[in-house]
């Protein structure tokens, strides 16, 4: 479990900077750095085991059905990368503390940075390849946030978007590649996959796997032709560039190639694709770097070029090249991160990054200049610095490579890239630090605070130390890492040393220095020559592509998404009907054998009523009030059907819901138009009619087919358990409050959500356009008396009676038809009648409780009842019951289920009351203004005359 903490600590620790930023920037930095440091310490605790040759594993199954597990492993390669991510991460955190300006939100920056760190650690430590894909995409997302950190700058936003499109697109390819790889290898665990290189390479899936994985690695590591995003990502703050774009994220592609090396490398295809892509990237990017004026652009293209170098080395697929690659990853991370930080220092102190406006900084800021010069010497590949050593090894490997029987092209191109590298490094170092200083700088430059150059200094110490004593310092790391890359193959003979004698590599290196000097000598003419040639602008092409796909997407969307509900519903209905008929007609359709029930006269009469009402609705639906009455007839017949077929609970529920729904629709109809306009178009009516007929026929056929067949049900269990297990004889109620209580609990929550949504929709309807429309609305037909006395008196007299009935229905619910739902509806409709009869203002003034509180209490009581059973060590919502003898009343039964049912009751009352009262409140506004205050009360005549006088006085 411990090594998964290495990943999880930064991911979860990302919350801390956001919290601690309130205590100041130093505390925030300290906390962020501590998070990384803890993770690093944990990693280092495992280092001895890894160096003994062990592989540390941890994890657990996550979704074994799809091969996904939460598993991590730590070997030489993972340790190397993880140490780099955490080590350089720490330096970047310290550096960023001084780099970020006061107005930059530092907490957010460190949160993103830690999230990225965690994601990146996940990539390098995942054992499960699907988990790796998840972390891979997380690095793309978090790097998007980091690149776009300065979201007020358009370059930042565009660069972030481009990086996301390219790298997350690559991530999708990776997902495809990994799924195929898992299938070909028969396992999604890297430990297994790396053992099965032969199986994978013999598999017919090998070519697609290879292409997908390579495309993904090339996008992430900015290989040609996907290199264009990296320079645009330089819009990020410099700490981000130093961290993501030199040391970690862009190396993820190289890491992927190295990780899967034993499984995928070795075939001709690998060599044929990876080598030229790496080689081309190395040369082209170095060439572009030579002509850039922005310091970060130079470094960006240089990074692309060096990534090409690493890719090419892995493409050679020889163990020696793998060693060179591992060594170069280490060296590049040290000197390039140092250089990025130096560029940031220059930008910070001199106010510009343009090489043409800089110069002479060696005298103005000697400390950081010395450090930058050391790092750029290493980038150029000068002896005594670590860049030299790995470049020599690269040239040595290149010299041994023949491509299509051609022995010179790879070494020559590699030497050319090395020469270009010398040229741009010298131009960088000379132009910024050694050239004559310009007349004035945007800021007078001087050395930055210690905290800003200290991380650079630390990296430069490594650059020099590895350069002078490579075997001592980097030897074991390189050996362990390369062994992990090449898997079971034997590590070749090599020595990490400054002097190897006069070798082909040394000669190539010397040639590179000479050509580099020559290139610089003719830099002026060369630049003018380059200006004259057409150069494709990657950003323009990318923008064109994005624009075209946006247009295409919009065209398709416009064609499909017309904004017509009827059209969508028609399509959905047609599909359902068609699928239903295809399914129905392809099966057997013999008549069912279950004996049917004979009809009786009442049933036929009700059926005829139903048919008549349905047909009438179709033809009269323009008259909305009539439609509403017809609809309630249909509802009534439905509830009678429930009653006929042994479902008294359903009949009670249906009829009380019918009452409430009708009141609700009536209230709404008061504010809506009373007529639906006639819709023209016979064809449309025919089309809709035939869809409807098809659906009706299908539903009827299906229902009939089911009802005439026998079946076996799980209900016997419910029937048997109802009394002994649930303590009630009404099985439906026992199912609701006990056996399937969790369902019911969910359902009352749905009810509450609906009520709150209704509340939210209507609560602010009394403002803005809606309010103006309401105020303008005058009831066309006003009855002489808005609140008829008979109705008012009757409803008030009914209220206590209805509440008593409600409680009776509630109490007997466990054993006889009834229960919380029905009781709630009855009580709510009794209360509702007060709103209808006496008006909103009158009722609200007298209501002693709040509907919101009822909702909350309902859910709370139901939930606590459920939790109560946990206290007795039983599962959630287990009920218990007992019989008690109460004097005078006699034997009664009390069950916890009843308490649960009380929660249901309250939630239902709350839902109905909240929605209906909210609706009638809006209604009140549409009526005469001011709303009449209880016209049937004793104060009525006075209120009316007062209103009249106030009207006159205006």
């Amino acid at each position, binding site marked *: 479990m411990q090594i998964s903490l290495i990943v999880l600590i930064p991911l979860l620790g990302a919350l801390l900077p956001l919290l601690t930023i309130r205590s100041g920037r130093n505390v925030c930095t300290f906390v962020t750095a501590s998070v990384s440091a803890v993770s690093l310490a944990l990693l280092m605790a495992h280092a001895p085991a890894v160096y003994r040759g062990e592989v540390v594993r941890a994890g657990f199954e996550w979704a074994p059905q799809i091969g996904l597990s939460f598993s991590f492993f730590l070997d030489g390669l993972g340790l190397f990368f993880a140490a780099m991510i955490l080590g350089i991460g720490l330096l970047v955190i310290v550096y960023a503390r001084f780099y970020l300006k006061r107005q930059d939100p530092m907490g957010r920056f460190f949160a993103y940075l830690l999230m990225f760190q965690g994601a990146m650690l996940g990539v390098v430590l995942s054992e499960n390849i699907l988990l790796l894909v998840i972390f891979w995409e997380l690095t793309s997302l978090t790097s998007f946030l980091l690149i776009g950190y300065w979201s007020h700058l358009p370059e930042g936003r565009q660069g972030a978007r481009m990086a996301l499109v390219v790298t997350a697109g690559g991530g999708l390819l990776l997902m495809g590649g990994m799924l195929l790889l898992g299938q070909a290898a028969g396992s999604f665990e890297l430990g297994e996959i790396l053992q099965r290189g032969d199986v994978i390479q013999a598999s017919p899936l090998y070519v697609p796997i290879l292409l997908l994985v390579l495309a993904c690695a090339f996008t992430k590591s900015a290989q040609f032709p996907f290199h264009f995003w990296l320079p645009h990502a330089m819009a990020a703050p410099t700490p981000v560039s130093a961290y993501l774009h030199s040391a970690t994220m862009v190396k993820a592609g190289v890491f992927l190639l190295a990780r899967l090396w034993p499984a995928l490398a070795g075939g001709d295809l690998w060599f044929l694709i990876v080598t030229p892509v790496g080689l081309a990237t190395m040369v082209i990017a170095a060439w572009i770097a030579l002509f850039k004026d922005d310091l970060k652009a130079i470094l960006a293209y240089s990074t692309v070029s060096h990534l090409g170098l690493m890719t090419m080395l892995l493409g050679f697929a020889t163990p020696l090249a793998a060693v060179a690659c591992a060594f170069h990853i280490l060296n590049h991370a040290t000197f390039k991160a140092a250089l990025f930080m130096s560029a940031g220092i220059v930008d910070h102190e001199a106010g510009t990054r343009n090489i043409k406006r800089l110069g002479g900084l060696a005298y103005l800021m000697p400390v950081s200049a010395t450090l930058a010069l050391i790092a750029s010497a290493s980038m150029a590949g000068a002896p005594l610095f670590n860049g030299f050593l790995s470049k020599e090894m690269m040239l040595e490997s290149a010299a041994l490579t023949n491509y299509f029987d051609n022995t010179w092209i790879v070494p020559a191109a590699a030497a050319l890239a090395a020469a270009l590298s010398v040229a741009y490094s010298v131009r960088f170092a000379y132009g910024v630090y050694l050239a004559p200083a310009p007349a004035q700088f945007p800021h007078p430059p001087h050395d930055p605070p210690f905290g800003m150059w200290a991380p650079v200094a630390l990296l430069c110490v490594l650059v020099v130390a590895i350069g002078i004593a490579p075997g001592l310092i980097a030897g074991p790391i390189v050996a362990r890492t390369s062994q992990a890359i090449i898997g079971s193959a034997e590590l070749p003979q090599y020595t990490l040393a400054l002097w190897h004698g006069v070798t082909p590599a040394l000669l190539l290196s010397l040639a590179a220095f000479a050509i580099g000097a020559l290139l610089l000598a003719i830099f002026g003419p060369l630049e003018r020559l380059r200006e004259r040639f057409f150069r494709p602008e990657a950003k323009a092409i990318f923008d064109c592509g994005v624009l075209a796909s946006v247009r295409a997407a919009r065209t398709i969307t416009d064609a499909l998404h017309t904004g017509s509900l009827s059209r969508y519903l028609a399509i959905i209905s047609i599909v359902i009907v068609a699928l239903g008929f295809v399914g129905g007609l392809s099966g057997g359709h013999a008549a069912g054998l279950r004996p049917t029930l004979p009809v009786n006269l009442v049933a036929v009469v009700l059926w005829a009523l139903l048919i008549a009402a349905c047909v009438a609705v179709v033809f009269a639906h323009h008259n909305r009030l009539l439609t509403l009455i017809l609809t309630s007839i249909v509802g009534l017949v439905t509830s009678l059907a429930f009653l006929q077929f042994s479902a008294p609970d359903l009949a009670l529920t249906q009829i009380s819901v019918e009452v409430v729904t009708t009141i609700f629709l009536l209230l709404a109809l008061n504010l809506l138009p009373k007529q639906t306009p006639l*819709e023209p178009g016979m064809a449309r009516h025919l089309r809709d009619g035939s869809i409807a007929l098809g659906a009706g026929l299908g539903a009827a056929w299906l229902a009939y087919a089911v009802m005439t067949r026998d079946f076996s049900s799980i209900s016997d269990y419910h029937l048997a358990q109802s009394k002994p297990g649930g303590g009630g004889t009404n099985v439906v109620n026992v199912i609701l409050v006990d056996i399937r209580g969790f369902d019911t609990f969910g359902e009352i929550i749905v009810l509450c959500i609906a009520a709150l949504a209704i509340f939210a929709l209507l609560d602010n309807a009394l403002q803005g356009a809606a309010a103006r429309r309401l105020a303008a609305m005058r009831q066309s037909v006003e009855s002489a008396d808005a609140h008829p006395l008979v109705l008012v008196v009757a409803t008030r007299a009914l209220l206590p009676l209805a509440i008593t009935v409600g409680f009776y229905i509630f109490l007997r619910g466990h054993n006889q038809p009834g229960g919380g739902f029905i009781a709630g509806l009855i009580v709510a409709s009794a209360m509702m009648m007060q709103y209808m009869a006496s008006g909103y203002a009158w009722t609200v003034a007298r209501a002693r409780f709040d509907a919101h509180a009822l909702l909350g209490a309902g859910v709370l009581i139901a939930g606590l009842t459920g939790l109560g059973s946990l206290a007795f060590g039983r599962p959630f919502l287990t009920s218990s019951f007992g019989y008690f003898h109460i004097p005078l009343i006699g034997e009664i039964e009390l069950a916890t289920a009843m308490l649960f049912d009380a929660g249901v009751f309250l939630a239902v009352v709350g839902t109905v009351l909240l929605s209906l009262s909210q609706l009638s409140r809006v209604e009140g506004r549409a009526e005469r203004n001011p709303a009449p205050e209880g016209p049937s009360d004793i104060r009525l005549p006075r209120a009316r005359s007062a209103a009249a006088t106030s009207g006159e006085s205006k």
Partner: protein
Amino acid sequence: MSMEFLVASGIGLMSAVGIYLILRRYTFSVIIGMVFLSYAVNLFLFAMGRLKINEPPIISGASSYTDPLPQALVLTAIVISFAMTALIVVLALRGFLETGSDRVELEPAGSRKAEDMSAK
């Protein structure tokens, strides 16, 4: 004719009316269509327990009872349909109050252009 036939044809007719009404272009028809569909679907689900007369699922020593499970499911479904109906009624009402129109489709032009402008 049998009871099963009556119920099945009732379900079919209510579904047909419901579908026809939800394909109309005005909110109120669509709402009533949803109410009809709720009736049909609830009755259909209930009928999955088969039709029995005078066998309510209340333990009383009788020899057989009708299937209680569909009844329990339909009971909550009825209450939830009420909540759903109320919600769409209020949506329709608020929409009408805001726009002065109770059609259920977008006006063909205008809205898309505004969206384009905001995207830039």
